[in-house]
């Protein structure tokens, strides 16, 4: 297979189709800067940039200053600048590190099952079967429900006295005493993670299913002619072809799950005894105390952490790509 060193060759759609790849190379892909081209790009980007700057970045930056001020709603008569005091207070608080630990458990415990199940379903949904359309419609539903409602849905099912989950478990003979799911830190963490997995699988399924459609059949045909087995086809054709979508989807989900207080608020409110707080829910509980300075500082710490993570993550996924080609 002919491969140029141009970075765009990694684009999956090109794999196995040499002529277009060559064609692309003959086309001036990175022309010298011209005013017309620059204006064109600007014109296409302008609406998006304008909206995001005005309605997201301006309020965000304007709000971030609270992190460097003594900004407590219980007394706004003195909102003087305090430098990094709020940040120091955060880092000095042992709870911050416990909460970070919970966050890691929450993110990892949610994303791994979501990814595996979502990927498997997407792969299996490629094959045609009767009622596939109906099946898809049914399993896509969780994504249509708000996190708040999911919290309520699962709080009801995990209810210790009247909940259906305890009832099913005891019918199956797995428990003889009802489990007070949301009253015990360990089981509460399990319960919120289960709810989040239930909710998030769909997102992976949809994104991966859409990406899978872009893999040309010829690739699979070629692979099967080569006598490639299932696993080899999966790891040598499917995964590399949709790597861009996969890595981006995982990254987005990590960021979202990190910042997803809804289900936790609906189910445990961060309790019992703060044992299911993630950084985001904890931050909200700080705002409820009125201390927006400290909460904003936490918010900026979160943004910084996620940003650093994203940069490393993007670098790591890019390198792997390079190594393979």
């Amino acid at each position: 297979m002919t491969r140029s060193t141009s970075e765009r060759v990694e684009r999956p759609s090109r794999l196995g189709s040499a002529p277009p790849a060559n064609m692309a190379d003959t086309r001036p892909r990175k022309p010298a800067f011209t005013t017309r081209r620059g204006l064109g790009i600007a014109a296409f980007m302008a609406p998006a940039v304008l909206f995001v700057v005005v309605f997201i970045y301006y309020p965000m930056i304007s709000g971030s200053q609270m992190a460097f001020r003594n900004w407590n709603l219980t007394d706004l008569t003195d909102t003087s600048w305090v430098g990094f005091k709020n940040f120091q207070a955060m880092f000095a608080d042992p709870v911050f590190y416990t909460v970070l630990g919970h966050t890691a458990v929450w993110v990892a415990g949610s994303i791994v099952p979501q990814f595996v199940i979502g990927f498997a379903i997407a792969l299996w949904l490629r094959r045609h079967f009767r009622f596939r359309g109906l099946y898809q419609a049914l399993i896509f539903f969780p994504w249509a429900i708000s996190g708040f409602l999911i919290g309520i849905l699962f709080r009801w099912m995990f209810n210790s006295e009247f909940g259906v989950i305890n009832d099913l478990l005891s019918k199956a003979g797995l428990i003889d005493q009802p489990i007070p799911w949301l009253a015990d830190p360990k089981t509460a963490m399990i319960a919120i993670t289960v709810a989040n997995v239930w909710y998030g699988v769909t997102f992976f399924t949809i994104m991966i299913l859409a990406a899978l459609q872009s893999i040309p059949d010829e690739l699979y045909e070629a692979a099967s002619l080569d006598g490639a087995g299932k696993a080899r086809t999966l790891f040598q054709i499917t995964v590399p072809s949709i790597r861009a979508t996969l890595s981006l989807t995982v990254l987005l989900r990590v960021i979202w799950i990190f910042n997803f207080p809804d289900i936790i608020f609906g189910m445990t409110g961060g309790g019992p005894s703060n044992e299911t707080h993630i950084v985001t829910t904890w931050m909200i509980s700080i705002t409820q105390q009125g201390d927006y300075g400290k909460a904003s500082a936490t918010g900026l710490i979160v943004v910084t952490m996620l940003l650093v993570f994203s940069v490393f993550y993007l670098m790591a996924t890019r390198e792997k790509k390079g190594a393979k080609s």
Partner: protein
Amino acid sequence: MRRRKATFALGLATAMALTGCAAGVSDGTVTIHMVESLTNPTRTAVLKTLIAQFEKQNPKIKVDLISPPTDQADQKIQQMLQSGTGIDALEVRDITAGPWSTNGWLYDMSKELQSWSGWKNLTENAIKYSKDAKGRTDYIPYGFYGLSLFYRTDLVAKKGFKNPPASWDDLLTQATAIQDPSNHQYGYAFRGGTNANSNAVAVIEAYVADKIDLDNGFKLTDGRTIFSAPEALNALNTYFKLFKQASPPSSVAWGYPEMVEGFSNGSTAFLLQDPEVIATVGQSQVINKSQWATAPLLTGPSGKAIQPVATAGWGTAASSKHKAETAKLIEFLSQGEASTTFTKENSLVPILQGASEDTFYKTGPWASYLTMTENPSKYITVTQPRSSSWWTEWIQKSDAEVQKVLLGKMTPEELLASWDTYWTEKWKGQ
């Protein structure tokens, strides 16, 4: 593609048309915006009828009621107050009054209400809470909350008890007797979740009733905190026994809604709650009116109980451009028929003298409140430091620590030491 473009255009045009502002009216009619905080559909409906009556009496004033979801309401009100627009009358709670007043968001209504004829009809408590420490009138209470014990008459009788529990010890005995998890029957609707601290404090206060500072329910007459008293430990030991022996295990996470539900769905036999619960339990589809009643607040070993007062009311935003009209609305809501309707419909302790003479307040579940008001030396009313600026911080800290004890991660001794230190230091810093 052309069709798609047309759809876009149509969509935008519709959006514009639909969002067009109503033309301003300039016939001297004033619109005042009123924001409620403890929103619920039934209450909003009552408020709307009262507002309609007010508008009928004052044709030049229109009232626009804004009812945000109660979970987000205080935050929204803060934003409105901070921005200084779109808010005239608002619901102020005893716990928000302090901070909002400090920030200069609340208007001192003393001047507008000076000549109000309604003052003379208010109860002593209502007048007291209409003025803050500096003599400002930030809000007029619309009613009061206070604890009483909801109990299942049938279950108590079945276990052979002649009377409902009068003291915390009685409660422990009776709840333990009723507890029967294998039949889904539990004794006490324990508060382990949000605001778990409030009932823990209530039991401590009952145990130190003889030496409590009436103006600060967290203080003893000798100036130290109630948590430092040796009786406090006895109180907590009884209280946590109640959890272990006589409450559903899931109640570690029970807040207000779960407790109320736990009582009204029949799974628990006792509930310590505010009078507004009377209406909710009255609508229960599981237990009927003959199966439950209320008893006065539980006493400590000295035979006395401490009733903490909680309240909320109507105030005026400092940024309001229609303060006179807003004051008129608040006067209307705080007197006569309007006030009585509001307190009755929402089951609150009334703010008007003589309102408790109404048979409504003398019979059924309300009778225990009458007993309590008639025996002020046994059921002592105290003010809690609810207006402290650190009150929400305290609630979150103390709730988490109560749960820690319930989960066995902290001892009652450690909890009391922690609370004692917390308040001692806060008072020192004042």
